[in-house]
C-alpha cells in the first residue's frame, strides 16, 4: 500500500483542517463570498469539512452594485445547493448613508468603498472571523499573509507585527472587538485551483469561459461594457470573444481575448500564460503597493 497523497489532496486536507480550526476557535465566523473561483472553492471545501452537517457559516457577499448578473445568479444557486445562509452587504447603501464618497471620472470604481461596507457588515453581525479565498501566489503583499490573520478593532492589518505561525498550530486568541481573517487556500496557486475545479467537477459562473461580449479597450486592458462604465472620448464598445481570469466588480475586472470554452482549454491557457491573473485588475495597477495599502485598511 502506498500511503501518499497527491499535491491536490494534501492541499485539500490542509484547507479542511484550517476551516475546522476556524469553526472550533471562533464564536461567529463567516465566509466572504465574491462569486469568484477562489471563494467558490472555499465554499466547496467548507461543505466537505463539515459533511454531513451543513456549512456552519453564512456566506457574506459585499455587493458593489456593479456586479455581473452571472455572478449574482451563480451565488444564489450555490447558496440554495448547500442550504447555506446568505448575507449581502451593500456598497450602494454605504454610499447613500454618506459613509464613503463615490469616486468620479473614467477610472472610478467602488473597489475601495467595499472596505467600509465589509467592516460595517463584520461589525453589524459581530463576526469574529471572516474566511476568505485569498492566495499567497496572487500578489506580493498576500505572500506575507498568515493563515490566521489578526485584525485590530479598526479592522486594520499590521504586516510588520504578525503572529508567527508554526507547524499546524494556529493562534486565534483576540481581544473584544478584534477579528481575524482566515485564508484556508493560502498555499494554492491559480493552477491548483483550476486543476481542483476540474478534478472535482465544480460548476463555475459562465464568465470564466469564452463568450461574446460588448467590450471596450482601455490602455492595455479590455473592460466589459456596461452602463456603470464612464466612457472616455473616442471609446466605443465592440463585440469581442473574451473570458475572465478573475471576477470582481464590473468596472475593474479586465477580460482576456480567448477561445477557451472548456476547463481543459482554460488549464492549457493558464499553463502558458505570461501575465499574472491580477495583471488585468486595475485596482492593483494603481501603485506598486496598492494591495498592501488597501489590506492595511481592512480590504481582503
Amino acid at each position: 500500500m502506498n500511503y501518499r497523497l497527491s499535491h491536490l489532496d494534501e492541499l485539500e486536507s490542509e484547507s479542511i483542517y484550517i476551516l475546522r480550526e476556524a469553526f472550533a476557535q471562533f464564536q461567529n465566523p463567516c465566509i466572504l463570498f465574491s462569486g469568484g473561483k477562489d471563494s467558490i472553492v472555499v465554499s466547496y471545501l467548507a461543505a466537505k469539512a463539515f459533511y454531513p452537517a451543513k456549512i456552519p457559516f453564512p456566506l457574506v457577499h459585499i455587493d458593489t452594485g456593479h456586479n455581473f448578473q452571472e455572478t449574482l445568479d451563480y451565488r444564489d444557486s450555490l447558496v440554495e445547493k448547500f442550504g447555506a445562509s446568505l448575507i449581502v452587504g451593500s456598497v450602494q447603501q454605504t454610499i447613500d448613508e454618506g459613509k464613503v464618497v463615490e469616486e468620479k471620472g473614467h477610472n472610478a470604481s467602488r473597489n475601495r468603498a467595499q472596505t467600509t461596507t465589509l467592516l460595517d457588515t463584520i461589525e453589524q453581525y459581530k463576526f469574529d472571523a471572516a474566511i476568505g479565498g485569498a492566495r499567497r501566489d496572487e500578489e506580493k503583499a498576500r505572500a506575507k499573509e498568515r493563515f490566521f490573520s489578526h485584525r485590530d478593532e479598526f479592522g486594520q492589518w499590521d504586516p510588520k507585527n504578525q503572529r508567527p505561525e508554526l507547524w499546524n498550530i494556529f493562534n486565534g486568541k483576540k481581544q473584544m472587538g478584534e477579528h481575524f481573517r482566515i485564508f484556508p487556500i493560502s498555499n494554492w496557486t491559480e493552477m491548483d485551483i483550476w486543476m481542483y475545479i476540474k478534478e472535482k467537477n465544480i460548476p463555475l459562473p459562465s464568465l470564466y469561459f469564452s463568450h461574446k461580449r460588448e467590450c471596450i479597450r482601455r490602455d492595455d486592458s479590455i473592460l466589459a461594457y456596461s452602463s456603470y462604465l464612464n466612457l472616455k472620448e473616442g471609446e466605443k464598445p465592440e463585440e469581442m470573444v473574451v473570458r475572465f481570469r478573475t471576477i470582481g466588480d464590473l468596472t475593474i475586472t479586465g477580460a482576456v481575448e480567448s477561445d477557451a470554452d472548456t476547463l481543459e482549454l482554460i488549464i492549457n491557457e493558464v499553463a502558458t500564460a505570461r501575465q499574472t491573473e491580477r495583471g488585468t485588475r486595475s485596482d492593483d495597477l494603481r501603485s506598486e503597493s496598492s494591495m498592501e495599502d488597501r489590506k492595511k485598511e481592512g480590504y481582503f
Partner: protein
Amino acid sequence: MNATKSDLLRFTTAGSVDDGKSTLIGRLLYDSKSVFEDQISSIKKTSERKGLEHIDLSLLTDGLKDEREQGITIDVAYRYFSTPKRKFIIADTPGHIQYTRNMVTGASTANLALILIDARKGVIEQTRRHSFIASLLQIPHVLVCVNKMDLVDYDEKVYESIVEDYRDFASKLDIQDFHFIPISALLGDNVVNKSENMSWYGGATLLYTLETIQVANDYNHLDTRFPIQTVIRPHNSEYHDFRGYAGRLVSGIIRQNDDIMVLPSGLTSKVKALHTPNEQNVNEVFAPQSIVVELADDIDISRGDMIIKENNQPLALQEFDAMICWLDNKPMNLGAKYTIRHTTKEAKSIIKEIVYKIEISTLQRLENETNLQMNDIARIKLKTTSQIMHDSYRKNRFTGSFVLVEEVSNNTVAAGMII
C-alpha cells in the same frame, strides 16, 4: 502535464543579502516559468528607479513596502513553483541574526532545508546557524549548495574542502540526510542544467535533486495519533444519530473495526466508519488526511482529546523538558503563566526553569540563565495545568511541538519542541 499525480515538497531557504539566495530563487522561479511578464516589468521599473543596471530579482520575494525600500526581508515570504514532477512551496526567510525566529517559523513546515554557502567564504557563522536550526526543527533533508563556483574558477579542491568542513561541523548535529551540490546561481551551473565547467562533479543538478528526493516517508505512519478538532452533529432527521469526530490524522493509520482508545479518558471503543473529504465509508485512512471517524460506542469525546491505539500510546505528562525559541519582542518572564497550544489542546503553563541557553554559533551551552530575549534558543522545564499527550519532537513533529501564547497581548511568544 498530469500534475495532479505529482506530490508536494516544502522547503525553506535562508541567507543573507549577498550570498545569492534571491538570485537562486529568482532563477528557479524564472526557469520553471513561474514569473510572469507583468511581474518582470514591475520589478524592472523599480530596479531602474533605484538606479540599478540589472533587474534586481530579490524584488520578486520582497513583498512589503518597507522591505523594498530598505532592501531587506523582514518576514517569511512564501513562493510557489511547479515542474511536471512536483509542486514546490518555498518558505523564504531572512538570514540575519535577529531573524532566527523567522527561520524557525519557515523550518517548522519544511521537508527540506536549502543551505547556501559562498564558495569564497566557506562555512561561516551563518551556515552554522541555519544548519543548527534545520537540526533543531528536524527538517528531514538538508541540501547544501556551494554557490558562486564561477568566482573560484570552478575549482574542485575548493568545493571538496568546504564539503569536508561542513561534514565536520554537521557531525555534531542531528541531521539524517545530506546532499552537496556545487553551483553558480548567477550563471546557472548545476541549477537546472548540468554544468560544463564542473565535469568533475558527478552528482545531480539542484532542480533534479529537488524533484526526486524521497519525501513520502517523511510522514510517520507507525504511531496513530488523531487529535480531535471538532465534533460533527448534523441535527437533521437523515443523520439523527450521527456523531463524527473530525480532525487531521497527524501520524499513523486507522482502519475500520480497529480497536482504539481515547485520551485522556482512557475509554476504549471500535472504529465504526471512516470518511475522507472525497469518499464516505473507506476502509483505511492515513496521515496527513483530514478525516471523520465514527465510533461504535457513544462515549464522551471533545476537542483536545486524542484517539490512539492502546498498544502504542503517547506520553501524558504535566511536567516535561523542551527546547524553545523565543519569538517575541518582550522577553520571557520566568514563573509567569503562558497558554500552551499543543495539537488541538489548550492549557495553562509556567516555565519553571531555564536548564541552559544555546549560543548558536558555537553550540555552547550557557547555564544559570534567567532570561530569554527574542531569537534565543534554550532548554526549559515546563509545567502545565493538565496532561499534555505528546511524543518527543524527534519522533513526531506534530505531537512533539507546541507554542506559548502570552495572556494579555495574545501574541505567540515561543515555539517549543518537547524532548
